């Protein structure tokens, strides 16, 4: 059983002071501690970006791969070693921009992983270009006249693809995010938590204050099993932004389909020489 002290990383964190990433890191730490597994039983996976540095900052397993490729790596990881809790913590550019195709198809696979998306509307590490979630009109060095693409709504997308668990949070509410992560990890199948994360250096629109004025928590009247309600809440943006579990769609996971319950994880299984022999005989 790990508690926070066991997994807390004491080194320098290379984020800007005030960045929402610090808060998400705390939430991830808390959630992992609350899940109560040993440090080597969790794997944090990321791509590249500010958010994607997160796996370096928790003393569990980390896989810090390529920009945009967190999801296929996480999929491979979970398939290889089912015993791991696999949590992806990466940026919105990473997950919805460069990695957009993997997002779609990983949701379809319903692999049992939890994705914590640091949604800051920008490419932070490369200095503030608009990410796919940036609103129309957002001005950046590569969109000097403002964004002219309609923003991608990650929660709408995940819901319409039939994700098993879809939630939204705001980085500032550390405990709320932590609780969502715990619930997501415990839910079998693909879980997305899109976390609204202020980038204090480059996003001067979606600030703490901006979110503070808009974000509210869903109450018990919202039924996450109701697709229509989920889509309606997911679409709410602008004046009011709902936080919490938007959608739940329990269904068989990828590994449920692939293997009998109780099979040893792939990494521990060995091929039988007789099986190889039998295959060779097929050629005769």
């Amino acid at each position, binding site marked *: 059983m790990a508690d926070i002290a066991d997994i807390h990383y004491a080194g320098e964190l290379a984020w800007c002071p005030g960045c929402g990433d610090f808060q998400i890191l705390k939430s991830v730490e808390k959630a992992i501690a609350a899940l109560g597994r040993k440090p*080597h039983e969790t794997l944090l996976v990321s791509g590249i970006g500010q958010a994607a540095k997160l796996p370096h900052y928790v003393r569990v397993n980390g896989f*810090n791969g390529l920009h945009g490729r967190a999801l296929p790596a996480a999929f*491979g990881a979970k398939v*290889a070693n089912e015993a791991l809790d696999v949590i992806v913590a990466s940026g919105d550019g990473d997950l919805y921009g460069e990695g957009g195709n993997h997002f779609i198809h990983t949701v379809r696979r319903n692999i049992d992983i939890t994705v914590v998306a640091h949604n800051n509307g920008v490419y932070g590490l490369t200095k503030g270009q608009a990410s796919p979630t940036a609103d129309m009109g957002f001005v950046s060095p590569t969109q000097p006249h403002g964004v002219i693409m309609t923003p991608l709504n990650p929660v709408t997308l995940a819901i319409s693809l039939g994700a098993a668990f879809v939630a939204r949070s705001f980085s500032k509410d550390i405990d709320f995010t932590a609780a969502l992560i715990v619930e997501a990890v415990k839910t079998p199948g693909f879980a997305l938590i899109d976390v609204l994360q202020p980038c204090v250096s480059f996003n001067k629109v979606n600030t703490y204050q901006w979110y503070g004025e808009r974000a509210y928590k869903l109450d018990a009247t919202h039924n996450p099993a109701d697709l229509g309600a989920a889509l309606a809440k997911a679409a709410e943006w602008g004046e009011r932004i709902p936080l919490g579990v938007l959608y739940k769609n329990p269904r068989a996971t990828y590994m449920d389909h692939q293997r009998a319950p109780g099979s040893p994880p*792939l*990494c521990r299984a060995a091929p039988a020489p007789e099986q190889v022999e039998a295959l*060779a005989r097929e050629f005769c």
Partner: protein
Amino acid sequence: MGNQLTITLGGAAGQGLVTVSHLLLTSLARMGYRVFATQDYMSRVRGGHNFMRIHIARKQPRNAPDHANALLALDNRSVETHAASLRAPGVVILDPATVTARPPNGPLVIEAPLSTIAKTQGSKVYENSAALGALFAALGLPLEGAAKVFEDQFAKKSAKILADNLAAARAGFDAVRTRYPSPPAALWKPDGKRRALINGANAIGLGMIAAGLRFIAAYPMSPSTGIFTYVTARARELGVISEQAEDEVAALNMVIGASACGARAATTTSGGGLALMAEAVSLAGISEVPVTIANIMRPGPATGLPTRTGQEDLNFVLSIGHGEFPRFVFAPGSADEAYYTAGAAMNLAEKYQVPSFILGDQHLVDSYHTVDKLDTSKVKPVNYLLDPRKSTAPYLRYKLTNSGVSPRAYHGMTEAPFITDSHVHEENGHITEDPLLARKMAEKRFAKLKGMAKEKTGLPAWSGPKNAGVVFVCFGSVAGAARDAVDTLAAIGVKAAALCFNRVAPFPAAEAAKLLRGKRRIHVVENNIQGQFERLLIAHTGVKTSVPVRRYDGRPFDAAYLINALKETYRWRI
């Protein structure tokens, strides 16, 4: 009744060519014939013109010639394309009801009422079996030779289907035998030793499985798909997981994720797909996660000639991925060699924690040949993971060592968590920007080259007399044509040899230089326009080469092609 016979089976895609060929090949192998068969097909599902060329010889053939002695023509186009170039005895089998074209002169035309027979049996699908029967009669083979093959193929469907197919075969056989009691293209009696029949695709797949493959992710792409489907068909029973990825970028990243978490993993692709994997290859390089990549070449650029053969991606594979890291690249010369190579490639990836490439081509994976035995005892998964009892804390995933190889655990294997990382990192996997560490980590990765270069897998192989005057040098599947050319030349008293490379990275420079020392007539034979392998050979050995033989029209070499290319130069009278 000589020492060899070649049969072309031609038809449109979807006409059953694959079925007839498969029945014939399997029967021949079981009866004890030695065969080599190549496939020539278009990028379409129905129509067009495809053919299979089956070469049968007393000595194990390693290639098929570009001409044949007999032809099974399932359509007019097959007659038009192949009949004129038939050599003695020159036999064409066709169904006069569907094939109206006739060769202008020469070949004996055997009319077999395949469609009528099929109709009698109740379905067009029986044409294939009828054709096989007709072929058997023409070749002077006993139909019993096919009985077990038919059983394996059809009994699982239903007893009636089996019986009907057998009846169709018998009718086809009788139709020919009645008119030609003495078989017009008679084969010699085989040695009776039942042989295995493999193609490169299956051989690579089996080699991977034998070396402990647990996870495969790929995106379909000709001509690599056969490997992927071979493994996938058997995955569940083997406890292997096979995943069709959404794209090739995903495929290799899945493989890396799986390998980092303890499942031996591989992917299969061809040039365009490999191109999409370039970044992930680089990730495997710096994160030192073992991966095996079978890249099966077809001619490019871009879509190129999707179903044809080429060796154009050599340079690309040697330098794919940004940044610098060592890699293995193996190019097996035949299907049986591909089995051992694939197994070794997987193990060596683990041993050195590097990307390991199997560089094949359409000619390798789609060609079948017989083998006496696949020695399964030679390919086993070798465990190179750290011994947790000997591991000391803190666990350093990228520990600097003299060999360049760090003790490897997978995530979750021991109680020590660690980081697999894509940046320049510290020994523990944490990001660093320190110049000294950057230098040391680069040197660590390249330190592996020393051990890698000493590995014995895939060293260049010499065929022919040591004192040969002429040497054909090649890599990959060209070996077959080169070796057959050596034999053909020997038969007319020319001392030629073939030096066939399998491992091309790390390049076996010392071995190559030694083998080629003093040779002046070195002809590099390769399936590309730039002479990529020739340049590589020269760069590593400094040897002087003579006239190259290059082919870049999507077709494989045969022995005659090599000999013809140099006939004038050497005044060979052949």
